[in-house]
């Protein structure tokens, strides 16, 4: 017991060293240059939290040791099978029950789910760490925006083009670098994401630079637009309805739901093809794959291109939903968010990614709106302050989550993905479930 306290005390001492200058002394822009402001209370709080946390970890740590280091047990898997259809039904019925706020939020969550599923092909199935996924999202968004505003093409004819463009860029980047080791790929994709963003900012004649592209057309339903005049050839006019914005919002929601479901279906099908099997084998052991005669570069390249293509689709949807895009939407933070969703959900798990996106994107936003509602109701300064600061802490939480998941459950917090085919004891291969 004494050793436990000494260890916790040591941790607190280290925490004091780490946090005393950076939390305890804030640099603020004063009247004559920077000034320091002391925050001893904040340091005391953080250090005692570290002390208590370490104490709890040492006392209870061994008893709550996770039963399996590689994901949940069979009970979780069975529960997962029941969750998926429920989620689908809720998703289909949501626009009939929810207000505009919820439909908008669900659209945002679905965009992240789609991005997560796209990145899942690259990271989860093929085991290639792509830190610049947002670049393909940007390529898709700008492809649609430029094609639509320059040539007047519609959303549905541009959607495949945006996907093809993104896949093309994926191949272009992937071809040279996929021969390298996994670690190098990570940093090259990181650099590539930044290159794309810098080019988008500075190539003003094409992309209008930091000001972005405005007036991107909305999608149509079999040629029916969702404009507000309600005349011939609009959705409201055709069905003799009162034109309302909510109709377009709901339509956009179903578009992204459809796109996301196609992504999911496509991935699930691909996983059963020789190519999909090769991806999973590649993730587990690259050297063994090469020895078995799998063309490693081509296999990686297809994963990269398909992942990029889904990113491109999501990008085109993002552009048409916002009707405005600028390079600001395509920073490294977006890549990191999508990666956090994939890692938390469980590398390779489709359901896990969806759940992670719902919790990480939807949950945080709901928490924020709940807090600001409470602040309004009770006139509480504290809740208002927390609600305002919540977005700031979002990335901090994501970053910590990445570390914690890797340390505690490297194959994902919510769900797991074991190889589709495994060898049983008798030596006969058995196909796994979804």
């Amino acid at each position: 017991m004494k050793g436990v306290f000494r260890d916790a005390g040591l941790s607190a001492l280290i925490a004091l060293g780490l946090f005393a200058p950076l939390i305890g002394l804030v640099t603020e822009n004063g009247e004559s240059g920077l000034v320091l402001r002391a925050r001893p209370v904040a340091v005391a709080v953080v250090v005692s939290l570290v002390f208590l946390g370490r104490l709890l970890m040492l006392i209870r740590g061994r008893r709550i040791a996770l039963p399996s280091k590689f994901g949940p047990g069979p009970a979780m898997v069975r529960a997962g099978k029941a969750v998926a259809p429920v989620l689908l039904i809720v998703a289909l019925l949501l626009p009939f029950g929810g207000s505009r706020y919820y439909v908008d939020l669900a659209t945002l969550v679905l965009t992240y789910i789609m991005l997560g599923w796209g990145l899942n092909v690259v990271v989860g199935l093929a085991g290639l760490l792509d830190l610049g996924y947002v670049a393909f999202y940007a390529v898709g968004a700008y492809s649609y925006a430029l094609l639509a505003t320059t040539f007047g093409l519609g959303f549905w004819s541009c959607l495949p083009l945006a996907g093809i463009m993104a896949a093309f860029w994926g191949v272009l980047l992937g071809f040279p670098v996929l021969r390298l080791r996994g670690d190098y790929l990570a940093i090259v994709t990181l650099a590539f994401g930044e290159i794309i963003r810098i080019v988008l900012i500075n190539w003003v004649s094409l992309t209008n630079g930091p000001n972005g592209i405005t007036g991107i057309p909305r999608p149509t339903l079999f040629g029916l637009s969702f404009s507000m005049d309600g005349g011939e050839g609009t959705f409201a006019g055709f069905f003799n309805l009162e034109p309302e914005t909510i109709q377009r919002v709901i339509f956009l929601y179903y578009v992204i739901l459809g796109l996301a479901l196609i992504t999911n279906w496509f991935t699930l099908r691909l996983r059963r093809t020789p190519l999909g099997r090769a991806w999973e084998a590649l993730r587990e052991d690259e050297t063994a794959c090469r020895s078995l005669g799998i063309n490693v570069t081509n296999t990686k390249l297809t994963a990269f291109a398909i992942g990029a293509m889904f990113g491109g689709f999501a990008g085109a949807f993002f552009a048409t939903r916002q009707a405005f895009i600028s390079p600001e939407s395509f920073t490294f933070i977006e890549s990191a968010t999508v990666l956090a969703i994939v890692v938390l959900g469980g590398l390779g798990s489709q359901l896990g990614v969806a759940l992670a996106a719902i919790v990480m994107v939807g949950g945080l936003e709901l928490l924020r709106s709940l807090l600001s509602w409470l602040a309004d109701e009770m006139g509480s300064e504290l809740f208002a302050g927390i609600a305002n600061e919540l977005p700031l802490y979002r990335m901090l939480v994501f970053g910590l989550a990445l570390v914690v998941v890797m340390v505690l459950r490297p194959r994902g917090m919510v769900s797991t993905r074991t190889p589709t085919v495994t060898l049983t004891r008798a030596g006969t291969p058995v196909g796994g479930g979804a």
Partner: protein
Amino acid sequence: MAYALQQLINGITLGMIYGLIAVGYTMVYGIIGMINFAHGDIFMIGAFLSLIALLGLASLGITAVPIALALTLVFAAALAALYGWTVERVAYRPLRGSFRLAPLISAIGMSITLQNFVQVSQGARVKPMEALIPGGFQIMDMDDFAVRLSWMQIVIAVTTLSILAIFTWLVTQTPLGRRMRACEQDLRMASLLGIDTDLTISVTFVIGAALAAVAGLMFLLYYGAIDFFIGFVAGVKAFTAAVLGGIGSLPGAVLGGLLIGLIEVFWSAYFSVEYKDVAAFSILIIVLIFLPTGILGRAEVEKV
């Protein structure tokens, strides 16, 4: 000609900063074969620690530049080393023997964490600082262009070179350095021969972080403004430097840093400032394709 000479001076100054960061990347890669994505952010934390130390010393009334600088250097290096140690202990050590992507994902998570921690605790605004050592002297005046060498640049060069000299002595002449080199050659064999590999790896992180903090102080002095995001771009550039010099090679890291600094400065001077980061990042991609072992590196042989 005079213009080019000025760029050469600026490029070498910048290159020394990159070189100091690159040493940390290359040491960690050499010993455990992973890219420490959080290293750029340790550099950023080093810069912030330096800023806080300088402001704190000024408010205590210690304004004599040499004393203030020396104290700041020690303070920032020591605390950044503590950060380096903690990062390794918390985010990397539990993952040895985990699956292939785990340390990489953990490292990128740590990088995001450190960046946002500083953003939350210190604010997102750029922190400007007055020049600590103003002035300089004129080397030559040609075609109405005066080539200047500032005192600051001299301080940066002298500090960097002496730190690197101490570091080289540490790695090549001391028992600690011998242990580090042994671990780099073969981690398992080293542990069989009784070397405390965990400790050696920790020391590697500590030294790398301390060097990054020195680079952070130099960056703060040279540019006079920092924010929480500087670690990202500087980190990628320093990594490029490490790859260009040959990852795993310590002289290579310094050489690569100097080259990247020169390329960046000359690119900005003669082509376009806007695309200077694109130039540096493109070099990373080009080097990895055509010269994956770098200038002074050895080819990697993978045994199964």
